């Protein structure tokens, strides 16, 4: 191996006069090295005037620009054995002479790239290839084998700033394939050729380092500051946002949190205490609510409200409030009881013997037990998340427990008499069986405000939410659930959230068994959002069951046999959001993690304690020993019953894993690598600026510890690596233009420690946008960049973030345009699947090395997301898509990009994760949906896990579950936190088994069913075809309708389309799904949009998926008229949800349509001038400007209310959302109306037609 370049070498180089011919190039060379633009950047970074810079550059240029070290790697390539090569490579470092034009020199290079470079320069280079160029100050000796013998020596003189090295493709030594380990000893023969002169860091770097400092440093000194200031300026943006950790705590629980340290990790949940703890804060970090995160003006409400930013929701109401009415819960339950007795397992009956009431009795001191919130109200249903005993709806504090609890009950829920007794006259049942009828009609609209305990007892019926037919004439928002009023849910939940609450409002259990005639009832959505079905377990299980936001099943009553399941014609599956940001999560650190010895299930609240020493696994029924320690209650620090353990009290829990859970090696550090597209198109969109600025702002908030590493790699048709070694004075750019056989230009320092090299990283981020400013290269070598990234990161694992703006056409993984724009409306959509297995294979390699790839697609033209997305899909990454992103032309999208990116950068992250889904014997997983790789039958490999990832599993019943009264699902997620801790998060859900078809229907979770159907449909579209998928969805609704009809007496079926209450939205949502971007026909849909929508179907958490399929529509003009939601001390005016039908759109009205990733503020043409003035700051409707993307901040109550509401909606999602003000006559109003999915369009049926169609099908 060659030694490093002797320091002396530089001298000569320096001394050399530049040849005139070179001078012109020199600049270009500089540029060339970094790209034409790079010069500018460098200079600007430096701060020196351009001319000055140029001289410097040129001087070296002859030999190489001073700052840029251009090694020619090529030399080595052809020449010799790998080892020799290396030296060559180094030599090249110094070579200024071969400026940018590698391409020309390269044989295989596509001609297109050439133009950018000065061809003249190129030629010389080529000529030189045989030997050192005359004028280059080349260190012969160093060159060793290199063809370009030239000039490594210049390095000595190079200014520190940016060393740009070009690596010639052709030149690579054969060895390059070999992956390089960072720690590699320099001498290894198989090392990839290093472009960098100094292979051994020790040798090489000093060289460069020293040189700069000597000669050039001074001149650049000015430059360095320059990066600084901008950064500083930038920082405030980020910093202005206070970490909201403390705010996040619920008031109710704040006391406890006060005592505990809340480390601010970017992952708030972690506390490092030993023993069990409720981590108070939720994940703080990017805690800004969306509304504040974006440039959107803060709403008045934001100031005071407590925001759980990560979750994008408000924390629940203060303690007092929740506790408020003790009676209502009861009474509501009572109402619920009204159900026909056929559901024996319904309700809370006496605790089963094994789970004794004492468990809940004395609240452990350490865990403040929150008084049970009224069941109907919106207590924070963070079952899983809250302190084990706290959040359950049904349990008010122990002393207050509802009367029925006290009754000693048989183990199994007996008949429900208790309930009836307490609840009063069992009049309910009779009413419930009936179709909705007049009784409800008379119902007055709900009182607008205030919590009104629902009437109990006999009154139940009248006060029950009615579903008056539309003929009723009541304004839609007033029709339903009057007594429960939206205000209830308001306190803890945003609209997006409360949908998922299990017991929203007064939704009583009895509704489940009600039969709804779809042809008659028009108002199906409760005013306060779609409710979640209650799980009909007995009390003790019910109260600890996992939150439906985290884990839910399509059928909350599991059919006993597969034939029964078939008979119901409903899909069985679970939907998981395992890494959801939680406001409270019990974290346990103990030496033993108690697990079943045969199936490895974690102990959970649903196990059966045979006696004090043994427990019976609820999944495999093995009886296990209980370790002694388990009787120790970490909360009270006393020995007692095992039931006091947090594991038994909470269905969602996190363990800090002891060492046996380490995978072979110690937990990996957080490693982040950013791959940025800098091709012409990318520069055009201007994303680079936004990206760099945002990253710069958030640099301190990235989840990290002292080991965190970071790296950058830009690519167009060549790869640009950045050496960020901390000792350099400027980042050094290394160019590799051999994309067919990628190698790393230098062994280390491409990934650097974030803490140590923060300066350098900031420098780079400041320079990047200008560096490529005038890049004209149109090609994109994404495949090669990914390969290089993989090589860079594979030894540690980590996260690769890719921002891609065009179709990658060059090098490995090159794709071609498969979209025919004329086919956008046809029925048979082709090319939904990937065209190559390149990305899939690479993803599997990544997955094996614990590397995840996240994609940000910013393409305006077709970029084949279906192929590219495979890289994320199988490596556990996530995909973001910003169609037609342009930072000037599409400001709203830019804002969303920034918000999303902020969230993305700062959200919690888990590395080298695996998730295992266990379920009770007899069930098995049929299909997995989501982004991961299924390593073995029930083990998902997730190189990264992020809090926004959702998964779905379709289940099948293998053996009859006759012997079980309940089944359980357990999802265990083992991951490494960004702090290097191994943790296990366990979610357990318990569901009753039934052999009654009617119970299956009553317990069906329509949203989950839709979620699962969407996933199955997305699969089907790829494996079969889109029409097939639609057909299957249609059949799903026909089948379930006819199967349900079959259970009714024929008299009820005639002339109607009956369906049980719990499934009443199924046809509507299916018809909406057929009009969803992923599955629609007729409307012009870009292939990428469609594919991305399908991808969303697979990986969005359920509530957001439902929201995308069936967006929320709110009448703004009724805002505040109706209800006021209280959330954490803040009141936000709210209004009721409307069906998505143009019939609901009034010319006088103003509406907000919230479709998860976009939001429209629709203004009808007859809107009052006053409103325009108050809210939009324009005198009248006519003067509302096109393209308005924000609501002006005005000081009047209307404006404040509207903004508060909009911001509230925005904060209900983790990501950002585009926002458009749409005038009734505006060009984009079609975009708005295309969400009116109940309308008829040329190519699709209206909802009513759809129902008629269904009815026909059902009859036949």
């Amino acid at each position, binding site marked *: 191996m060659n030694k490093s370049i002797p320091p002396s070498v530089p001298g000569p180089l320096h001394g050399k006069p530049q040849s005139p011919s070179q001078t012109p190039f020199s600049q270009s060379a500089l540029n060339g090295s970094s790209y034409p633009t790079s010069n500018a950047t460098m200079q600007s970074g430096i701060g020196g005037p351009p001319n000055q810079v140029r001289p410097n550059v040129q001087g070296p240029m002859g030999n190489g620009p001073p700052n840029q070290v251009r090694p020619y790697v090529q030399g080595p390539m052809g020449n010799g054995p790998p080892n020799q090569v290396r030296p060559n490579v180094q030599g090249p470092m110094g070579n200024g002479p071969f400026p940018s034009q590698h391409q020309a020199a390269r044989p295989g290079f596509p001609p297109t790239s050439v133009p950018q470079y000065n061809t003249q320069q190129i030629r010389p280079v080529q000529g030189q290839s045989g030997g050192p160029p005359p004028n280059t100050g080349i260190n012969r000796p160093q060159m060793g084998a290199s063809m370009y013998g030239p000039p490594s020596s210049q390095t000595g003189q190079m200014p520190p700033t940016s060393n740009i090295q070009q690596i010639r493709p052709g030149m690579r030594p054969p060895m390059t394939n070999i992956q390089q380990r960072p720690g590699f000893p320099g001498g290894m023969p198989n090392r990839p050729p290093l472009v960098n002169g100094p292979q051994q860091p020790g040798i090489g770097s000093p060289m460069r380092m020293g040189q700069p400092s000597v000669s050039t440093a001074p001149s650049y000194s000015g430059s360095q500051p320059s990066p600084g200031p901008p950064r500083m300026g930038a920082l405030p943006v980020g910093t202005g946002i206070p970490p909201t950790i403390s705010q996040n705590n619920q008031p109710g629980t704040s006391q406890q949190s006060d005592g505990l340290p809340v480390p601010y990790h970017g992952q708030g949940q972690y506390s490092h205490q030993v023993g069990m703890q409720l981590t108070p804060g939720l994940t703080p970090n990017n805690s800004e609510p969306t509304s504040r995160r974006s440039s959107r003006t803060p709403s008045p409400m934001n100031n005071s409200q407590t925001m759980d930013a990560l979750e994008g929701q408000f924390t629940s109401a203060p303690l007092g409030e929740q506790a408020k009415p003790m009676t209502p819960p009861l009474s509501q339950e009572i109402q619920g009881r009204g159900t026909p007795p056929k559901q024996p397992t319904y309700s809370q009956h006496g605790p089963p013997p094994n789970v004794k009431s004492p468990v809940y009795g004395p609240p452990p001191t350490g865990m403040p037990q929150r008084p049970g919130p009224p069941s109907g109200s919106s207590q924070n249903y963070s079952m899983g998340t809250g302190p084990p005993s706290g959040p359950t709806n049904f349990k008010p504090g122990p002393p207050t427990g509802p009367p029925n609890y006290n009754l000693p009950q048989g183990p199994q829920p007996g008949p429900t008499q208790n309930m009836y007794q307490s609840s009063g006259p069992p009049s309910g049942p009779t009413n419930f069986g009936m179709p909705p009828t007049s009784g409800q009609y008379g119902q007055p609209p709900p009182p607008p405000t205030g919590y009104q305990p629902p009437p109990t007892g006999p009154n139940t019926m009248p006060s029950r939410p009615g579903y008056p037919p539309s003929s009723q004439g009541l304004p839609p928002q007033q029709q339903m659930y009057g007594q429960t009023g939206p205000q209830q849910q308001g306190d803890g939940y945003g609209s997006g959230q409360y949908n998922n609450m299990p017991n929203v409002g007064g939704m009583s259990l009895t509704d489940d068994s009600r039969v709804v005639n779809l042809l008659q009832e028009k108002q199906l959505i409760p005013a306060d959002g779609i409710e979640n079905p209650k799980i009909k377990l007995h009390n003790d299980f019910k109260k600890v069951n996992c939150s439906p936001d985290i884990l839910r099943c399509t059928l909350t009553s599991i059919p006993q046999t597969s034939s029964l399941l078939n008979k119901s014609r409903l899909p069985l599956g679970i939907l998981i959001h395992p890494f959801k940001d939680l406001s409270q999560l019990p974290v346990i650190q103990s030496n033993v993690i108690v697990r079943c010895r045969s199936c490895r299930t974690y102990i959970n609240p649903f196990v059966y304690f045979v006696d004090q020493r043994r427990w019976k696994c609820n999944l495999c029924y093995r009886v296990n020993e209980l370790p002694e320690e388990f009787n120790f209650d970490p909360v009270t620090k006393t020995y007692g019953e095992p039931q006091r353990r947090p594991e038994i009290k909470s269905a969602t829990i996190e363990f800090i894993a002891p060492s046996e859970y380490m995978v072979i090696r110690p937990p990996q550090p957080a490693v982040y690598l950013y791959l940025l597209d800098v091709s012409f198109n990318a520069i055009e969109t201007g994303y680079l600026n936004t990206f760099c600025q945002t990253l710069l702002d958030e640099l301190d908030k990235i989840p990290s510890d002292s080991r965190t590493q970071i790296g950058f790699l830009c690519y167009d048709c060549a790869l640009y690596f950045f050496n960020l070694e901390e000792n350099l004075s400027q980042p050094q750019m290394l160019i590799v233009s051999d994309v067919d056989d990628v190698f790393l230009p230098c062994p280390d320092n491409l990934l650097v420690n974030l803490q140590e090299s923060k300066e350098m990283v900031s420098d780079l981020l400041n320079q990047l946008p200008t560096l490529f400013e005038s890049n004209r290269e149109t090609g994109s070598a994404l495949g090669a960049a990914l390969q290089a990234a993989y090589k860079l990161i594979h030894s540690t694992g980590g996260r690769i973030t890719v921002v891609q703006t065009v179709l990658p056409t060059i090098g490995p993984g090159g794709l071609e345009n498969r979209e025919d724009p004329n086919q956008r409306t046809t029925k048979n959509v082709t090319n939904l699947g990937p065209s190559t297995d390149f990305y*899939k294979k690479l993803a599997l390699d990544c997955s094996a090395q614990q590397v995840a790839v996240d994609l940000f697609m910013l393409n305006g033209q077709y970029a084949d997301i279906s*192929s590219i997305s495979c890289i994320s899909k199988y490596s556990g990454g996530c995909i973001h898509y910003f169609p037609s992103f342009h930072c000037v032309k599409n400001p709203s999208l830019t804002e969303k990009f920034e918000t999303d990116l902020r969230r993305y950068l700062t959200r919690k992250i888990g590395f080298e994760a695996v998730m295992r889904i266990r379920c009770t014997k007899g069930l098995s997983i049929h299909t997995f949906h989501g982004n991961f790789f299924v390593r073995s039958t029930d083990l998902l490999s997730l190189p990264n896990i992020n809090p926004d990832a959702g998964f779905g599993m379709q289940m099948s019943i293998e053996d009859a579950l006759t012997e079980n009264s309940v089944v359980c699902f357990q999802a265990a997620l083992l991951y490494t936190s960004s702090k290097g801790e191994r943790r296990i998060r366990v979610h357990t859900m318990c569901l009753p088994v039934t052999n009654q078809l009617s119970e299956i229907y009553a317990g069906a979770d329509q949203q989950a069913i839709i979620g699962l159907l969407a996933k199955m449909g997305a699969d089907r579209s790829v494996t079969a075809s889109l029409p097939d998928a639609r057909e299957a969805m249609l059949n799903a609704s026909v089948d379930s309708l006819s199967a349900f009809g079959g259970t009714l007496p024929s008299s009820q079926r005639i002339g109607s389309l009956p369906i049980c209450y719990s499934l009443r939205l199924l046809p509507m949502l299916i018809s909406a799904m057929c009009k969803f971007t992923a599955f629609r026909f007729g409307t012009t849909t870009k292939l990428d949009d469609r594919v991305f929508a399908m991808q969303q179907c697979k990986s969005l958490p359920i509530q957001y998926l439902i929201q995308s399929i069936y967006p929320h529509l709110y009448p703004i003009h009724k805002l505040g008229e109706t209800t006021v939601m209280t959330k954490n001390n803040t009141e936000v005016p709210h209004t009721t949800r409307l069906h998505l039908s143009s019939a609901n759109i009034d010319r006088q009205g103003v509406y907000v349509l919230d479709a998860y990733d976009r939001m429209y503020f629709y203004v009808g043409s007859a809107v009052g001038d006053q409103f325009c003035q108050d809210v939009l700051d324009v005198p009248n409707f006519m003067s509302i400007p096109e393209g308005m993307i924000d609501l002006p901040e005005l000081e009047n109550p209307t404006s404040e209310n509207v903004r508060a509401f909009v911001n509230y909606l925005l904060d209900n999602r983790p990501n950002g959302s585009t926002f458009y003000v749409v005038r009734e006559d505006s060009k984009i109003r079609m975009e708005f109306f295309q969400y009116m999915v109940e309308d008829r369009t040329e190519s699709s049926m209206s909802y009513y037609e759809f129902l008629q169609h269904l009815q026909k099908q059902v009859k036949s």
Partner: protein
Amino acid sequence: MGVDSWLFIFSVIDEGALLFLVVYFVITLSDLECDYLNATNCCDKLNKWVLVEAIAQCVLAVLLLITGHWILFLMYAPVTAWLVYKLVNKLSGDIGMYDPTEIHNRQQLKTYMKENLIKMGSHLIFFFIFLYWMTISLLNLTKSAKAVEPMFPPVEVSDL
């Protein structure tokens, strides 16, 4: 020896090899089922042999066709056709026939297992059929050789 004997000798060997291959498939798949292997390794192993298998089958089918064994060909063709159909119809984005990312989905593993067991059965049957035909053809050969034999001795005799 006639064409037939060579053909059947070859087909017995070929069929024997296919039989081994399919047994290997079954073993590998069941390893995956039991978690002794991970999906990537398993599919890598299998995909290597998928093409070989298809070629071996096709060659045999073509040989049968060429040599005019219509009935055997018609018996043998369906399995081959099915194999080729599967190979041709695989999705463009899939990694080989056995895609590690999909193998645990939609009970594909079970389907593959079933397919391979069926294949194994058919190979077993064909193996014996070909063995039978080989024996027959060799016997015919010896018979005919024997039939010829008498002709030689006289020659020899005459020689003597």
